[in-house]
């Protein structure tokens, strides 16, 4: 990487009213991506050798976890207490809560087990908002086209159609749970336009959309008479029938004392979210502490097919400074509102509302080619020009982005006067478990919803579609799981799928000393001794 300007020099040279040259001519997006997007880094991708996706491309670090041994064995299960329930939901973010509520509304007894506290999730951090085609000039059809196009046409049209068709109903359902959204003076829902979309379609609650959604859903779940919640009980393995072909429950481990317990159930819904805390390719992340890709590991060992395992979303605007917030997000809403990106020379270099992968690759290019800004504390970035935005629309930051101001205030930065240094951060897992429109995976009895599921966003996601997906498909999976047929008689619960996976690893000559799921990153004290 060529050295650009120091932070001090760049700040001294910065003027919010400086004249900007017109945007330089843009190179072909495919070339830009293949040279600069982290998915295309050399050595970042490998080929899976065992399991349902054998032969497919997969990000290298993730492949290591998918092709690892289970953390438990049959002997560990002796004496573990057994709990019976109709539907087990694994994961307490937005998708898990929506699934639990929908299953309970359809008469199922629901147990929701989550790794940390209910609501400690990627959902609670979402800022920008949620997509729904509700404006007069907009339509579900346009929403569908935008989603497929931004995903480079790798998404499954049937899933995308289901999601965009659910949009308006999802917003109504959220309002009925008690979620607030910003309104215009005449009472309409206020909408913003996201990067890579053809119409304003993002509805939001200031820049606290995820917080508002999560606290409302958490309260609704906690208060629901048909749902039991177990905090601090991560799933460490699934359970299968004698032939290892149907999912019939899961093994949970208490974070407090690591004691195992068995949950026996008709259907399991995986809603474990993403994997930012695996820090793929050494990137910082915007994700919460529990985002370690556990759901992918559990589903894969059980025999569920996954998709797009070599495609991740790096969000263009992660904070660089201060170090303890490195990788944390500045919402795209701020670019949607008009904020520009400037390099060390104070010039624009990309259309800020292009899809995220393009903007990301462009930022990485600027930094690699010596047009980045380097703070003393390490790292590199480009400017997000918030002072210019504030000049153009005085009071906007305070009115619409209070979370950004609150966070930077703690760090002693005022984005109204000082531009923000940003660099791409590992943000979202584009792929995941293959599902159908009911959220069913390729393994009977196993459903997946939310970020752990794949097939909707193709190889790139537009802002606001994740929150829509988690509620839309969370509800679909919850309903399907609740209504799925009862099995007669006592069910045998086994670890047959674990044995099968171990045989496959041994046969392929892969090492058996690596274990997954990881549950917590190794730099946490709890993650160290696990």
């Amino acid at each position, binding site marked *: 990487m060529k050295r650009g300007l120091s932070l001090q020099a760049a700040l001294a040279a910065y003027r919010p009213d400086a004249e900007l040259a017109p945007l330089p001519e843009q190179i072909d997006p495919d070339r830009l991506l293949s040279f600069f997007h982290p998915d295309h880094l050399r050595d970042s991708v490998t080929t899976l050798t065992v399991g349902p996706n054998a032969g497919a491309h997969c990000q290298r670090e993730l492949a290591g976890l998918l092709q690892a041994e289970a953390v438990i064995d049959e002997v560990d299960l002796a004496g573990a207490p057994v709990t019976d329930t109709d539907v087990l939901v694994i994961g307490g973010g937005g998708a898990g809560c929506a699934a639990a509520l929908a299953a309970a509304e359809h008469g199922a007894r629901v147990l929701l087990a989550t790794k*940390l*506290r209910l*609501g*400690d*999730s990627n959902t*609670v*951090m979402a800022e920008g908002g949620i997509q*729904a*085609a*509700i*404006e*007069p000039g907009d339509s*579900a*059809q346009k929403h*569908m*086209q935008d989603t497929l196009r931004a995903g480079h046409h790798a998404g499954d*049209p049937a899933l995308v*159609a289901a999601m965009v*068709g659910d949009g*308006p109903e999802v*917003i*109504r359902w959220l*309002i*009925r749970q*008690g979620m*607030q*959204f910003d*309104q215009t003076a*005449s009472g*309409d*829902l206020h909408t913003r336009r996201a990067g890579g979309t053809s119409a304003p379609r993002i509805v939001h609650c*200031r820049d*606290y959309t995820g*917080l*508002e959604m999560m*606290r*409302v859903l*958490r*309260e*609704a779940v*906690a*208060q629901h*008479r048909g749902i039991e919640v177990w905090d601090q009980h991560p799933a460490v393995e699934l359970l299968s029938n004698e032939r290892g072909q149907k999912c019939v429950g899961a093994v949970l481990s208490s*974070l407090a004392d690591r004691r195992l317990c068995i949950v026996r159930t008709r259907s399991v819904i995986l809603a474990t979210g993403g994997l930012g805390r695996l820090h793929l390719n050494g990137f910082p992340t915007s994700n*919460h*502490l529990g985002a370690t890709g556990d759901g992918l590991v559990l589903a894969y060992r059980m025999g569920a097919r996954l998709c797009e395992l070599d495609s991740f979303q790096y969000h263009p605007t992660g904070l660089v400074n*201060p*170090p*303890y917030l490195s990788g*944390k997000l500045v919402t795209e809403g701020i670019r949607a509102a008009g904020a520009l990106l400037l390099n060390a020379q104070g010039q624009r270099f990309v259309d800020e509302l292009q899809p995220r992968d393009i903007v990301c690759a462009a930022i990485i290019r600027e930094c690699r080619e010596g047009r980045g800004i380097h703070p*003393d*504390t390490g790292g590199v970035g480009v400017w997000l020009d918030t002072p210019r935005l504030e000049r153009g629309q005085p009071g906007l930051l305070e009115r619409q982005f*209070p979370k950004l101001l609150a*966070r930077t205030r*703690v760090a002693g930065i005022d984005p109204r006067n000082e531009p923000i240094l940003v660099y791409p951060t590992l943000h979202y897992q584009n792929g995941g478990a293959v599902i159908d429109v009911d959220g069913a995976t390729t393994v009977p009895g196993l459903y997946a919803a939310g970020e752990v599921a794949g097939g909707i966003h193709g190889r790139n996601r537009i802002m606001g579609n994740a929150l829509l997906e988690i509620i839309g498909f969370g509800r679909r999976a919850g309903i399907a799981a609740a209504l799925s047929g009862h099995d007669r008689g006592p069910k045998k619960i086994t670890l047959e799928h674990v044995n099968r996976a171990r045989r496959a690893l041994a046969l392929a000559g892969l090492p058996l000393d690596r274990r997954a799921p990881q549950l917590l990153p190794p*730099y946490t*004290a*709890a993650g*160290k*001794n696990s």
Partner: protein
Amino acid sequence: MTDSTAPGGQAVELVINGIAVRAEPHMTIVEAAWAGGVPRVTGVGCLEGVCGSCRILLRRGQDVSVALACETFAEPGIEALFLPPPAAARHQYELTDFTDGWDIQARFQEIFPEAVRCRHCHGCVRSCPKGIVVEEGIALAAAGRFREAGEAFLECVMCELCDSACPEQIAPAHVGLFCRRITAFFHLRPPNLIHRLEELRQEPFSSSGDKESA
């Protein structure tokens, strides 16, 4: 992750959950706990102050306060104690129980009977890490001004540190959330959304038509 040492920074000694820890300056209490190997610190979530999980009690000399560990920095000599998660809620309600907005004040009094007993001790306000005017919010709720009360709690992260401080066990965060929820439940009726829902009711979306695609 925590190579956040400012060049030449002096190590900071502090105590976390009774364990002596050496941390780099600029580390948050969470990072210091990790670096120091303090076991069983699992009350951590988003690391950016919005999930409200990393509740700590802080002692600086004589001064005792509460805070969120991901937003509090290591200082020489301080003692931090990670608090257990908040206790289960004492109130019970489901929004679908409410059919008539006219009796909502009466229902509120039934569900949160403590709310009118605020003694204005400011305990909640002093303990709130988000600077929320908790006490004012409770007064607005008790007066039935639910929309304004809810607005006061916009930035509430549900850490419930205010609840731990409240001698009347008012559960202010849950009162605030109740106010926000019923405001949406009864009053949020956006014409643009309702219009689209009605269109979809008359003609459900099917992607097979592909009418508009060019």
